[in-house]
């Protein structure tokens, strides 16, 4: 009983933090979504479900939702594949020092703030004239492209940058998960004549289940909330709003259009989407084993 009290006491600051900075704002946002809200005004009109009705006829909202889903699906899938691949390679090294070195190298881009690295990519790697990628393309005899100003390439460019900036984090997690798999399984498989590829699919991948479930849920949630690189790389949301995602749309509605009630309705929609996707993932990724 005493230990239970101690645990509860220790958890109070965390509960408070979650309550004050997460639950209350979420409830507040829900309340604001029913108002024609301007925080500077003393009286804000109750508009019932008007803001939610507007969502259905708002072309920009659907465009932002489509872009967000494309970004999340493609970037998360690519991130998982690349980070699994990298961690599988890193785990092959027997020396701890070598493994640590490569982990550090892969993790380095994660340390830089997204805004700062987005600016560097936007100003030195992606520009049409003098950008690194176009210099490489032209030196190979290709035709330079407008990576950020052409609606066809903008999303791909943002995804490429996101992968560079973020893939190291999941690599570390997968790598730690792989290190935790008992070597006996691999030894037994090797005795039975199983090859490396077979070992990866039959031993590593299934036993990474818990790590995989965690990585997938966290990556999906964070990618739904990505904002910085879109804000920097997609100039005013890009041509024909090709770089408009839900987070940047919320920011634009709230701080440019000063329409906080509607911005809150879009936030609630994003919250519901993330919650549904997360619940589905949790159901699909249920893991009932241990080793």
């Amino acid at each position: 009983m005493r230990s239970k009290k101690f645990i509860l006491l220790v958890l109070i600051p965390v509960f408070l933090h979650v309550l004050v900075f997460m639950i209350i704002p979420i409830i507040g946002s829900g309340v604001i979504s029913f108002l024609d809200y301007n925080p500077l005004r003393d009286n804000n009109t109750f508009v019932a479900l008007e803001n939610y009705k507007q969502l259905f006829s708002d072309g920009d909202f659907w465009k932002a939702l489509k872009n967000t889903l494309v970004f999340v699906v493609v970037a998360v899938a690519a991130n998982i594949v690349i980070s699994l691949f990298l961690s599988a390679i890193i785990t092959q090294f027997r020396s701890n020092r070598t493994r640590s070195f490569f982990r550090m190298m892969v993790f380095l881009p994660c340390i830089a703030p997204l805004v700062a690295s987005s600016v560097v990519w936007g100003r030195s790697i992606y520009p049409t004239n003098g950008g690194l990628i176009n210099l490489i393309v032209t030196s190979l005899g290709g035709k330079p492209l407008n990576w950020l100003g052409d609606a066809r390439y903008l999303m791909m460019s943002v995804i490429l940058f996101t992968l560079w900036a973020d893939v190291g984090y999941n690599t570390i997690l997968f790598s730690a998960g792989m290190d935790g798999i008992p070597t006996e399984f691999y030894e037994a498989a090797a005795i039975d004549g199983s090859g490396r590829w077979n070992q990866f699919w039959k031993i590593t991948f299934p036993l990474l289940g818990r790590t995989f479930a965690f990585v997938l849920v966290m990556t999906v949630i964070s990618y739904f909330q990505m904002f910085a690189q879109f804000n920097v790389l997609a100039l005013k949301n890009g041509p024909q709003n090709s770089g408009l995602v839900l987070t940047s749309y919320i920011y634009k509605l709230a701080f440019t259009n000063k329409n906080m009630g509607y911005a809150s309705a879009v936030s609630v929609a994003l919250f519901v989407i993330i919650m549904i996707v997360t619940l589905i993932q949790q159901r699909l990724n249920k893991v009932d084993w241990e080793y």
Partner: protein
Amino acid sequence: MKKLLCLLLAIVMVFSMAACGGSGSSGDAGSSGSSGDAGSSADAGEPIELTFWGHQENAINESFKAIAEDFHEEHPNITINFEFFPYDEFEAKVQTSLADKKAGADIYELWGGWGVDFCSTGALAQIPDEMAAEITEDAYAPTYGALEYEGHLYGMPMEFNIESGGMLVNKHLLGDKPIPTTWDELVATAKELTQGEGDTMTVKGLDVVGWDTIPYTLCAMILSQGDNYLNEDGTFNFTSEAAKNAFTELTDLVVTDGVTNLTGLAGGDAMENYQLVFADQCVFAPRGPWTIAEGKTTFELTYGEDFTYAALPWYGDSIGFAAETGWSLAVNGASDKQEAAFEFLEYFFSDEVLMKHDVAAGFIPPKKSVAEDPALLESMPFLEPLVGILGNAQFIGYFNTDIFKETINNVYTDYCTGGIYESIDAALADLEAQCNANLT
């Protein structure tokens, strides 16, 4: 367990009550509106510390500090503490702090356009009558248009924001050619000097494609034909013959003449159009004179040798352009030091101080008496093409200019890209409809 829950609830209630209490008490101060009601002791000689929030810009920030020091010498009991924020996050910070009504600053540096959203809410303190009269009598109308609400002023202009009537010229790229004096000469010279095409243009002849440049240029082209983009009732008119001529000419610069491309709006350039002039990638860029300082300091160029600032030829037969309210100062409606804050604003609006600040910042003064002072041109000779036309400016209009610019830029981009509008009439009808819809 029950006790623990009670404790938890008690803490949460304390948090909530503290938050509500703070907002309520300061809200009362804000609702007074008039500076005269604020309980301040500026005259009593008691030490007063004012907080001033501005956006990061070295020359401007240093000028603020110097002026505050001089002010402190005259008012030894008032000290001003500065906090400067990156421009991109400044508006959101100002808005959030004004909403809080307790945190934030006593004095804000405020982009005038934000006034349309802020002034009506009571978040900013009303400018005292005497000072308001001085502003409306001596300042140009566009410099305070967005700071007005129901006949009262809620901010003090520091500059005349002008993005029309002048252009940056790259002298290396222009070579021996004379600076064009008519619109047709300008386009012809630009066509001759453009290098490359499409998105990978290496030298743009005349770059009008930018977030601010397209809307201001379009408005100026309509006004210089003797027409207006605003009807008398404040609604938009982009379906006139003058608007059609202007829009056709403006889109032709990309589609037919090929003297610029859409990267300034769509993305893909590492720099804005005026920076491209400094980087030898653009010959002419219509922008305000505030850009000159960046050419001198950031790009380390010599004015007159590497680049110059010249009059932008008018598209129509007359002189006419639109200007929005630029950088201004405002006092927090919830501040309990409003009297001292307004003393600083009054000090700032004197001819001598305003001249000092505007010269340091590269601004055009908002006051006629300062703008017409020959000393201004002695300090900033590059303003010569502009000081004579300030009286021809029209206040851009009382609406959210960010949305206005975005609407024009989107229609412009969509029309130039093709495939969306069947004709220029369809594009302009849509532009007019969108702009009018945003007014409601």
